[in-house]
């Protein structure tokens, strides 16, 4: 039953749609592996460059709107070490059908200040920055889950 369901679904998609999903997956992989957590753990100051002034970042229930507030929060969080154990992504319909926004959900373990260990769950939406055409974070929402 389950395999039938899968075959049907794959067949129902056009090549174009499959390409978009693959493209989204590649971008998500780069973001998760090479950018966000890498910068967060090794070069925190660079992280803020992934945000725009309209961006919103929610850290365990605390809201940070815009570059200045996000920068301030980032500076308050002690040195970290993230280990992403699981991530997933989905295309989110945008104005440009060729380039959907990207929903990314990650989870794993994080250690702050070497000794304080937690599990985390993190949701992002990546959108295309209209001026630079690069991807940037529209919003992200982090929760420590242990």
């Amino acid at each position, binding site marked *: 039953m389950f395999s039938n369901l899968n075959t049907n*679904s794959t067949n129902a998609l056009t090549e174009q749609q499959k390409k978009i*999903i*693959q493209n989204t997956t590649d971008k998500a992989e780069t973001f998760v592996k090479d950018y966000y957590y890498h910068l967060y753990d090794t070069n925190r100051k660079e992280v803020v460059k992934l945000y725009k002034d309209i961006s919103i970042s929610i850290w365990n*229930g605390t809201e940070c709107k815009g570059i200045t507030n996000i920068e301030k929060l980032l500076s308050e969080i002690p040195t970290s070490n993230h280990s992403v154990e699981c991530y997933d992504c989905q295309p989110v319909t945008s104005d440009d059908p060729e380039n959907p926004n990207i929903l990314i959900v990650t989870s794993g373990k994080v250690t702050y200040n070497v000794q304080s260990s937690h599990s985390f769950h993190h*949701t992002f939406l990546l959108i295309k920055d209209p001026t630079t055409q690069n991807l940037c974070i529209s919003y992200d929402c982090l929760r420590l*889950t242990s």
Partner: protein
Amino acid sequence: MSNNRTIKISGKKKGGANNKSRPIRQIHSNNNNSNNNNRSISRHKNKSIGSRAEYQKLIISPVPSSVDRNDLLNYIKQKAYRPNANFVKTEYKDQRLTIQVEKADDANAIVNLNNTRYRELQLSIIRDIRVTTQGGNKKEQILKERLTAAAISKVFEDHLKASYHNNPMKDAVDFSFINGSNPIVDFNSDKTDKLLFQIISKQCPKAVTVSFASNSITTLAPFKSMLRYSLDHVMNFNFSNNRISDLSELDYLSDLTLRELVFIGNPIALQPTYRMEVARRFPDLQILDSKPIGPEDFPPSPIPPLRANYCDAQERQQFAYKFLQKYLVAFDSERSSIINAYTPESRFSTTFVTDKGSNTRGTTKTYQRSSRNLKKTKNVQKNISLLFHGADQISNYFKLFPATSHHLTSSTIDTFLAPGSNSLIIIVHGHYLEKLFNTKRSYDRTFILAAAAPGSEAAKNGWEATILNEQLHIRSYLRFPRLEPQPNATPVAQAPTDINQEALVNQFSAATKLKPEFARECLSNNAWDYNQAYEVFQKVLTQGGIPATMYI
């Protein structure tokens, strides 16, 4: 207490307490005699009739007493699954779990699991080829066990009768000092505690506080199984004046809902890190040993405070809460109806992770098969097929999803509008109960919603929003960390507005056929948690406690 144990035997033999003990002893001794005489005959019987008459007996070892045997058994049933396999009996003794199955093929399937890993254990599974003691003896053994169980139950039942006149409405139940005067009731034994939980579940459906004080308890292991007895209403536990000496014993309580704990008079309470260890393990615990858990019970944290439910606007939080309420009630009780909350463009995917050593019950495979963890699978086709498109596909997927029961009131919900758009983001962190095995799972569920277009299928079916994207992350149950309230302290949108209440009352009344005023009362008694109210209703119903006048 070793005194107690000898008293237990001699007391029984003398039969001073009640007459029941005498037959036990007689049966036992008769049995020994006849056993000797019959042994050769039995052996012949066994050989000639062979496996046809005897069940297949299998020995699993090592099984330390800390292992949840029900879970292990379920694991084996799942791993060695065969249609109509009949597990006749299980027995636990000396770190060995003996199971009996009816058919030789089922036994083969289980023996094939020899050397399989279960949590940290490597299990040896072998056939028990010893000549078993025969029929009469076995029956006597069963009878003996039944009599012991009956005697233990009677102690508890008599106690409830004497102390509470069997009043089913009592909210606090005291089982302290039972072991001292009734040595047969050993609170460290699984069997005793299971009988006790059954009785609490049946006779104390309203109990919030239960005391097990002064019962020579050394281990909390048997209390782990409380979850299986639908005792979620019990939130305050008194274990004072027992003999719990190891802080790791606390881990056995980790699946329970807790508000208050008392361990005064136990060796653990004297350990210097005691309060901190308890506070860390049970983030939802409010009071320990009659003293509220406070900031001093936590080590200083290097990170900013973790805050409760976030929302960028109060009305959006109300909207989100109302949506989730409708969605999760439908998901739990009438899952096919959620199809209308999705559109042909909706996208859904799910991920699943298990912690090492966590339980591997039957549903794990369902989650694993559909887990789209991009870190693990690089198979492009699989990743494409596990991103479900459109209401039909998503709804088909949920048909395979286990039956669940969500508790929205204990969830953490972040709600906000996506910058520069009209889509509403809701991220829920909570847990649900799998109804089949009473397994708790934690989940993190992200929704991207759009307002339902007037006249759309969604709107016609009462959905104010449709789901554009949804990601469901499932993991082993873990308590959520302790949260501080939002600084501007808007009350958490946990009590629905009047309009929502009205809708819930109608829904509840339709489902239960209760008159609206009683439906309202039942809901409000259960903090407007629909599922909880329904469970309570079912419980009262099975006890025959609802007069006809309360029905429509």
